[in-house]
């Protein structure tokens, strides 16, 4: 029996936006760069295109803002950066993530003995 992808899809929905916010935390970045960073973890970003609806939503929610900047190698790029609300949201997630993931690991370990 093959394991369902549904749990991964559900987890991804809850976590991906914070990973996107985390990509912008050090410095403003553009879509392709975020896609390449997250693309090395297929569990997080199954296809690069799904990043853009998410970025549009984060912008609408006021968690990120975008500006256009000229590129030396290609067309102008839309750079995304965190707003104050975005930083706050990311900090809240970061603080909650470690105890949350530890709790989940404990429960699974207890149940399966793995």
């Amino acid at each position, binding site marked *: 029996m093959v394991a369902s992808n549904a749990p991964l899809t559900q987890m991804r929905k809850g976590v991906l936006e914070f990973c996107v916010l985390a990509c912008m935390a050090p410095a403003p970045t553009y*879509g392709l760069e975020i896609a390449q960073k997250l693309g090395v973890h297929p569990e997080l970003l199954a296809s*690069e295109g799904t990043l853009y609806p998410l970025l*549009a939503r984060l912008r*609408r929610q006021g968690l990120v803002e975008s500006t256009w900047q000229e*590129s030396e190698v290609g067309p102008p790029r839309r750079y995304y950066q965190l707003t104050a609300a975005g930083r706050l949201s990311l900090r809240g997630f970061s603080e909650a993530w470690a105890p949350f993931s530890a709790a989940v690991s404990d429960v699974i370990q207890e149940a399966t003995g793995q």
Partner: protein
Amino acid sequence: MITTHSQDLIDAYVSDLRRLLRGADPAEASEIEQSITEHIAEALSQIESPSAADVQAVLGRLGPVERIVADADVQLVRVSVTAADTRTPASAIALLALGGLALVTTPLWFFAGPLGLVVAVAGFMAAGGKTGARRTYQVAGWLGVAAVLVAVVFALFLTATTTSVGPGARGRRPRCPGVALRR
């Protein structure tokens, strides 16, 4: 510089995306389409003389357009569609009124019958399409059907009554049965 074939691949991809985003919030749809176009241009700018295979690889990493649209703010799209559905367009109300008119004027079967038929056809056609107020159109359609049926019954009844008035009336079909009855 990319080839015409490669450009066609990109155009087809973006065109499919645009088509599937139709109905979404226009500002959001435009932003997503623009971002995807930029992503493709940026990814290809990092490759010297990208081939069709390179373009396909870039599009492949972006994933199927259906998945992108599924990840768009479906909730917002649903909200706007639901809002549109709950608004009853004036045409549906007008059709409903005409259906009612056809039904109450069935004694004038020669007027109500054709009117009911038109309302029934228009109502069911509109209800079958991707329109809001589907239910209103369906009700109008059924009113039209009812008007046609009652008008036919009236017509048959009045014709039978007229032909049985007497020997003098046989063969002389009056222009309006109502007039014949009053004689």
